Every structure is written in structure tokens, then in C-alpha cells.
């Protein structure tokens, strides 16, 4: 059964594993113990003690915080109940002018701001940009991911949540 050390997975997640080794991991049979090892890698990375239940993005995790399960930034900022859209509790910068779009696309073709805007969702505490939406003006903010946490742990991981 394929398995990797926590150190190897930490380097993989950080994009620091040499490419030939990364390539071998991509091509090999998947390691069945990956999930909890990777959670442990992330747990070492965060400054807080609440146990991580599920990574949801690069710096965003669902964790057990007392009786609650919340979406939490790596810096510790809470976005509230994990079943609700964390973006609604974030800070936002909207780029809907040519000038604002040019800051990100200095020489490239850009959209017509009348047709499309960029929404940057930012942690209000540490300033990490967690997600960028490109949407037509007026488009509702999307709730990216509603994991079936109970089903995942109970039926796929075989462990109680």
C-alpha cells in the first residue's frame, strides 16, 4: 500500500517537493492514509488548536471549535458556521472599472466592466485573498462548497466525526 511521510506531504502541499518526486506521486496509486496525514500537516501550520475537520481551500479550514463547526482562516479568523457561505462574512474588493482591472492585467485584454466584474474575497483580519469570483454585475455570490461532513466521516473515512 502506498504511503508517504508527513514531511513529504508537507513539502508537496508547499509546492517544494522536487518535480520528479511529485510526478511519481501523481502517477502512483493513491495513498489511502492521505487525508488524516494531510490534516496533520495543516494542523501544524495553523496557530490555533481547534482540530481541523476538513480543508476547504488553500488557507481555509472547517474546524471543531467547542460545540460548533466553523470555517476558519489560517490566521484564526472565524467565518462562522461551516454550513453557511463563508464569503458572506468576508471583506470584498470589487473591480468593475477598466482602471481597477488594469491593475491586475497591465498589458492583457480585459473584459468589458459592463459585462463582468472581479470580486476578491478577503480575510478581514489577515488580508489573505481566499477566493476570486469573475461574474456578471448583479450575479449572486456563489456558495462554492457544502460538504457532507457527517457522511464523509461516517461512510468514507469510517470514523466518527
Amino acid at each position, binding site marked *: 500500500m502506498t504511503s508517504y511521510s508527513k514531511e513529504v506531504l508537507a513539502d508537496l502541499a508547499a509546492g517544494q517537493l522536487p518535480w520528479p518526486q511529485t510526478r511519481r506521486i501523481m502517477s502512483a496509486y493513491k495513498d489511502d492514509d492521505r487525508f488524516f496525514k494531510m490534516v496533520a500537516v495543516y494542523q501544524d501550520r495553523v496557530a490555533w488548536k481547534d482540530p481541523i475537520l476538513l480543508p476547504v481551500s488553500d488557507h481555509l479550514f472547517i474546524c471543531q471549535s467547542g460545540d460548533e463547526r466553523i470555517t476558519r482562516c489560517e490566521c484564526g479568523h472565524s467565518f462562522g458556521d461551516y454550513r453557511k457561505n463563508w464569503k*458572506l462574512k468576508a471583506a470584498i474588493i470589487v473591480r468593475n472599472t477598466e482602471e481597477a482591472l488594469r491593475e491586475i492585467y497591465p498589458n492583457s485584454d*480585459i473584459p468589458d466592466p459592463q459585462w*463582468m466584474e472581479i470580486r476578491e474575497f478577503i480575510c478581514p483580519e489577515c488580508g489573505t*485573498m481566499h477566493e*476570486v469570483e469573475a461574474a456578471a*454585475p*448583479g450575479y449572486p455570490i456563489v456558495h462554492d462548497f457544502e*460538504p457532507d461532513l457527517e457522511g464523509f466521516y461516517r461512510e468514507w473515512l469510517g470514523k466518527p466525526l
Partner: protein
Amino acid sequence: MLDKPASALRLRERLLDSERLMEETGCYDGITELTLRNQDPLKFETLHTKLRAYCVSAREMARRISASPGVREVGEMVVAIYTPEGDAIALSNGIMVHVHTMSRFIKWMIKNNYEENPKIREGDIFANNDAFIGTVQVPDVMDVVPIFHEGTLVGWAGAVCHELEAGGITPGGDVCLAQERFTEGLFVCAEKIGENDEIRRDYVIRCERNLRMPIYWVLDEKAKVASCIDMRESVQHLISEIGLDYWMKVSKEFIEEGRRAQLARTRQLTVPGIYRGHTFYGHVTAGKPGFQLLGDPDWLYNIPIEMEITTDGKITMDFEGTQPWGYHSMNCTPAGMDGGMFVTLTQHMNFEGLVNDGAWMATELKLPHGTWTNPDNEMVATATSWALLLPAYGVFQRLLSRGFVARGFVEEAFVGQVNSPMIEMGGESQYGTPFGMAHFECAAAGSGALAIADGLDTAYVGWNPESDMGNIEVWEQSMPMVYIGRSIVPNSGGAGKYRGGCSFVSTWLINKTSHLRLHTSEHSSRVFDNGGMCGGYPAPTCQKHRAVRNSNIHELAAKGEPLAHAPGIAPDVSDYEKNIGGDHVVVEGPYITAPHKSGDIFSHSYNGGGGYGDVLERDPIKTAWDVENGFLTRQAADQVFGIILKDDAEGYPVADIDATIKRRAAMRKQRLAKAIPVSDWIEAERGRVEKADFAPEVKKMYASAIKLSSRFTKDFSDFWKVDAKSIFMPGAKP
């Protein structure tokens, strides 16, 4: 368990029986136990490996028969072996999108009682390129031949090549001007085109008289038939070794195992739950020549996708809320949508074990009737269905990648494929002959980023996992143009901790022709259609074409003056305008205009991929390398990524780490100072929504989505706390 030898039932009954068994047992053809696999797993695996080898070998042989650079150079071909009922057992590498579309073609013939008329006999050759029967678009021409063993139909061999010219209203295959089926080109609607292993002469005559460049189509037919016969003979030889009953059972067990493998793969790599995402496609046609007045000009399409992964591992993709079909060429059919699903699964989840139609059976597509995904009118055009299909399945890749990230398999997360606009042309060739063809270097765009690395530069499209732009000389040999530049477009990958793959731009001098028509298709302009992920930005749009008519390039060359080989990095003034004299033209979005002639210059660029992660985390050292090699500009490194570069003694850029740390800290502060709570933004934006203070195309998009989808209407209304119907469809019943 399976207990059916080669059945005496007629094909149609066998197919219906198979579908009923799947419905009743949830297992393919009612196979609830993998008996043969359990009895002798090594024999089972070895047989499947043999079948796959037959397919790969047949495809490689066919590529050497084909005359088309699209097939020969770029590899736009796939072959597969099917059960008698038309389910794929094994397939080659190549354009795997068509494995399941061929399955639909075979099933369509069976359900339309081809066994009676025109009859299915040994040596017959059937062809199809009708997307409502089973393909994606007209240039994807598929051939299948039945496989018989001692008089019993035991399977099918099938092959698809993407043709470079389809005989439509504009030359090429992705016919951008097609607004109805009748302008898309030469349709072959599940026809018997050959008998006794020979393509009928009357069919070849029809091709010769209806295509601008029939040599490609006809030679590709021969290549496909050769590959089918090769696979047929291999399967027949195999059956003589293992016995007919074993073949009939094992071929179906392969498919059931493929179904189970897909479910297991989903359970292994993802997390159950609901995933959502969207993308957009913007097409600017108003005022452009050639478009008939059938529908509104200028199109803005929203493509929202809700994906559910259940705890049994089934993936369901729901397209509710997307747009209606239209009088343009970007509509798709359920066959095309199936193809998109199949090619994505085979690239991103099923890269080991058995890959066949079983993988597709572990998924479900919900394609709302009347939308571009499932038109309720079979007269619509589907010539550029990839325009919407590709961004849609780019979203699918991002949704799957969320699952991979959540599960810890970060090395599999991929920001997604990109739309890569195609250039097509026709008129008079450099040899003085009529011609028409698609330029297939679009098969090598920039990919989306990974969660651990930058995307692939100029090396990926979703529809061909072996993406290859082809050699310059091959294209020059076929078209009356010579390259004066093919280069990376700096900053064309979406910005992020890992940037998207960069695209490229080609610049040609039109040569030795007095009449060259140039058109582009799959060309989204005015909106991003390649999103980012986890804080990464979308890839830039790709909307401007630049041409110089009546250029003085020959005079400049004679004097040894500098030329321009690419548009350069100034957004408003291209290097062509700076360096070359003549009549300069800049066109937004799809290019369609009066014919060009020798001495004109034309440039066409392709798309890059979206970025992954926060830009302020990008590696400064890697960025210095990017700047040195032309993938990023110094301006972007500084302005977008907050990376300060200085020059070393030899003038090469190197990262100033200390200065970068300071600048990034300042940029982070600026972000926080500029950002507002989302709740405040929603409150402020609601007034604009209530007034529908949007561009006409945006309003039209909302009105049509609301008309078709009660769920979209509810979601929109709930989010903004408004009555969406009364805003966008005044007078509509509440």
C-alpha cells in the same frame, strides 16, 4: 450475474434489455458480480490490456495513413471497441471526448432499427457527424464497423477524426457563421457509407463535390476504416482464442468494473457534498459581416453548475440556470455534453485501471430542456459547441479540484482547461487551388494552474490530452501564409501563487494568394471564461485581433529595417503599429471581415489558464525566472505580485527578497483598507439590482435564465431579497 451467451435476440431488444437490467439492478447489463474477474484476475486484466493495445496500435497506424495535419501532427483522433449494444469496452489515447459520442451513434442506429434497413452486415461501414445522433460538431466525423464472429454480431470498432474542413458557410470546421444547421456543412446522418470493407464511390463523390478540401476528409475516412478493420481482426483473433461466450461475458464485465472503479475513485479522491461554480461566455457579433438577422446580436451566457457527489460516489452535474439555445453556432447536444463529461473523467480521475463507458455510467448529467446544453429544436447549429462546452467543463475540473484539495490530494487539483480560439481560413491557396481548413495550433493553449505548481505553458487543451500545436512548417505547407512570429504572451496566465499557463500569439504574413478569408471561432470576448481558484485570478480575456492590410513589410525587409513579430506589451499601441506601415486594423472578439491578400499581416492569440492561490504568496525567485524568460513582465511582477526585481551584474532580473517582503506587507494593508464587508456591498448593490442598472446583454441574460429556471429565479431573489421576475421580466406572472 451475467448469464447471457451471444444472444439470439435482435439488437434492439438486446439494447432495451440491457438498459432495463441496468435500471433494475443498478449494475451494467445486470452484472451484479464480476465472476470472470474473480475467477482469474490475471487473465481478466491481461485481456483488457490487449484490447487497449489493439486500440492504441490501430490509432497510430491510422495517423500515418491520414493526410490531415490535424490528425497526423496534432493527433485529433480516437478509436474504441464496443459491445454489440454500443457500450465502449476499451479505447485509445487521443480525443477521448468521442468515445461516448460514438456509443450514442451506435445506439441510435440500433434504436432506429438499422438491423432491418439498411441492415447491419459483415464488412459494412457506417458514418455519422450529426450531433443530434451522436457527435459534438460537424467536423467530428465518426466511422464504425460491426464485428462479426461466425455470423453473430459480437461488437463494433469505431474511429473519429476531427476534419479540418466541413463544407460550411465559412471555410474550416468550426463554422462560426452557422446560425442554423443548414449552414454548418456536409452532414452524414448515420449513413452506411461502405460495404465489403470498401467506402462507396458515390459517398466519396459527395464528399469531393461538397468540401473545399476533400483530400483530408476522404483520406481520413480511409484511415478510420483501416483502424476499424485492424481492431476488428484483432478482436476476431482474440475471440478465436478465448471463445465467444467468454468474450461476450468478459467484455461486459470490463464495463461494469469500469463503473465500479469510477465510483471507488470518486470515494477515494473527493468529499461528498454539493459543489457550485460558474463561468461566462461573451460573444460580440453586432455589426460583423455575414451574420443573419435571426437572433439578437452579442451574446452573454452564464453557465452555473451545481455538482453533487453522493456517498455512494455518484457524480451528478446540473446545468439548471444556464441559457437557452440560440441562433448561433455555440449550441451543444446531450451527446456533446456526455463527451465533455467523458473526456474530463478520463483525464482527471481515471488515469489508472479500466477506462470505458462504465466511468460515464457512474455519473449523471442534468441538462435542462431548451437550453444550449439540450436544445428542444434539432435545427440549431452546433458548429462551435466547444465555445460553451469547454468553459463549462473547465468549471467541472475546478469543482472536482475542490474535492481533491479537501481530500488532501493537492497534486491532482487543477484550475481547469481553457477555451482556445481557433482560426479558420479558405480561399485560394499558395498553389492556386481552392482550399479551406482549420488551423489547429489552438490545440496547445495555456492550462490552468495546479495547487502545487504553475500551469502548463502553450501545451494544453481539454479536448485533446496530447495537446500539440504542430510544427510551423506543416501549417505553412498547407496555408498561404508564412510565420513571422510565434511567441509567448507575457502575463497571459491568470495571476496567483501559482500562475496559469501562458498562451502564445502567432503572427503571419499572408503570402502568394489574392484571396484569403480568415475567421475565428470559440472566441469569448468581453468576459473571463477561464476562472481562477483559491484566490487565484482568472486568465485574461483574448479578444483583440490585429491585422495590417497593404503592409510595407517587404520594403522594410529589403532595407533590413526592424519588423514586429508580436503585438508587444502596450495595451493600446501594438508593435505592428510602431514598426510597420499600412492600414492597421484592430478587431474585438471573433474575426470576420473582407478577404486578405499577399502582403497583409495578421495576428491571432490563444488563451492562458486561471491562477491558483493568493498572488502575494508567489515565489519571487520563480518570478524572476518568469520575467527573464518572457512569461511575466516586470510591471506585473511589481504591480500584481508585489515582487521587487533588481538586475544582476549581467543585467538579468533577480528577486530582492527584503524589498519584496516590505512591499507585500504594504499591499496587504492596502487590501484591508480598501475592502469592505460583503454585507455592506450587498446592501449597496441591491439598489442597482432593483433598477436592473445593467448593460442590455446582462439584462437579457438574467431574463432568459429566469424564464427557464425556477431555481435560478429563487436563488437570485433570495440572495438580493428582491422579486427577480418583476425586475427582469416585467409583466410576467409572479
